[in-house]
């Protein structure tokens, strides 16, 4: 049984996701900040991979994720900069998406807008278990709602077909 994920909307521009893991904070931190680990779990539904994952984990440093469908070639990405890096507990980073509108993506130098979303991840470890709190503050309620609705598009991930197979593969 998967552990419950709590999703709330603290204000009309925010979404907050809370989840507890049976692992120390450092390991969860690594899984969010080391590219070879990020690309193993932060994926869309079956059929999507993350062929491009670059992270410069420093204040002002950039990250760049690109997801690509393994057969139909469709791609989208997210990118931003780190604003606060306090390992292994506190990470603040901006986030913007591209590729969803079908326009060509500049993978190495994505255009940074003046008003990105600002995400804050906090990890609190108690007795070997860690609670992850991810607060996402969007520039407007319309953009926030678009992000919420992304659960229905096949961009980030909706159809979790054969998810069990993916998990089995990762653990094999």
């Amino acid at each position, binding site marked *: 049984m*998967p*552990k419950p*994920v*709590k*999703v709330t*909307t603290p*204000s*009309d521009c925010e*979404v907050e*996701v809370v*989840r507890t*893991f*049976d*692992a*120390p904070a450092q*390991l*969860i931190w*690594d*899984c969010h900040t080391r590219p070879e*680990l990020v690309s*193993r*779990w*932060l*994926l869309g*539904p079956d059929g999507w991979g993350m062929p491009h994952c670059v992270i410069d984990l420093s204040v002002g440093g950039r990250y760049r994720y690109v997801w690509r469908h393994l057969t139909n070639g469709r791609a989208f990405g997210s990118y931003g900069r780190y604003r606060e890096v306090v390992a292994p507990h506190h990470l603040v980073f901006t986030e913007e998406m591209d590729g969803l509108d079908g326009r060509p993506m500049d993978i190495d130098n994505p255009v940074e807008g003046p008003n990105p979303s600002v995400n804050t991840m906090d990890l609190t470890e108690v007795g*070997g278990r860690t609670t992850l709190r991810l607060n996402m503050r969007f520039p407007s*309620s*319309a953009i*926030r*709602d678009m*992000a*919420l*609705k*992304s*659960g*229905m598009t096949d961009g*980030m*991930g*909706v159809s*979790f077909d054969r*998810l069990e197979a*993916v*998990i089995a593969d*990762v*653990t094999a």
Partner: protein
Amino acid sequence: MPPSSSLDATFAALADPTRRAILARLVTGEASVSELAEPFAMSQPAISKHLKVLERAGLISRSHDAQRRPARIEAKPLQEASMWIERYRELWEAAYGRLDSLLADLQAQRPDPKED
């Protein structure tokens, strides 16, 4: 109204704690402005303002025939909004399920001596 903009209105209306409390009160049955003003220690115009936002979002309806115009809750937009959040939640559940597996894998590879 197209579904997307009515959903935006739903979320905007739900963002305010007083309006959420008013909805919680209306779940137990319809109420007039004065009946709502009392427990919330708010003026009737303030309550009316909140009711207008809720009404525009389709979260409540108010009868037009009676003088006290009681407000009653409308279930459909609430269900729609909670559906979006539920799908979004499932998205994270899937990703974090994969993260669970990866964490277990990493811990098996590199057991922490402090854990023993």
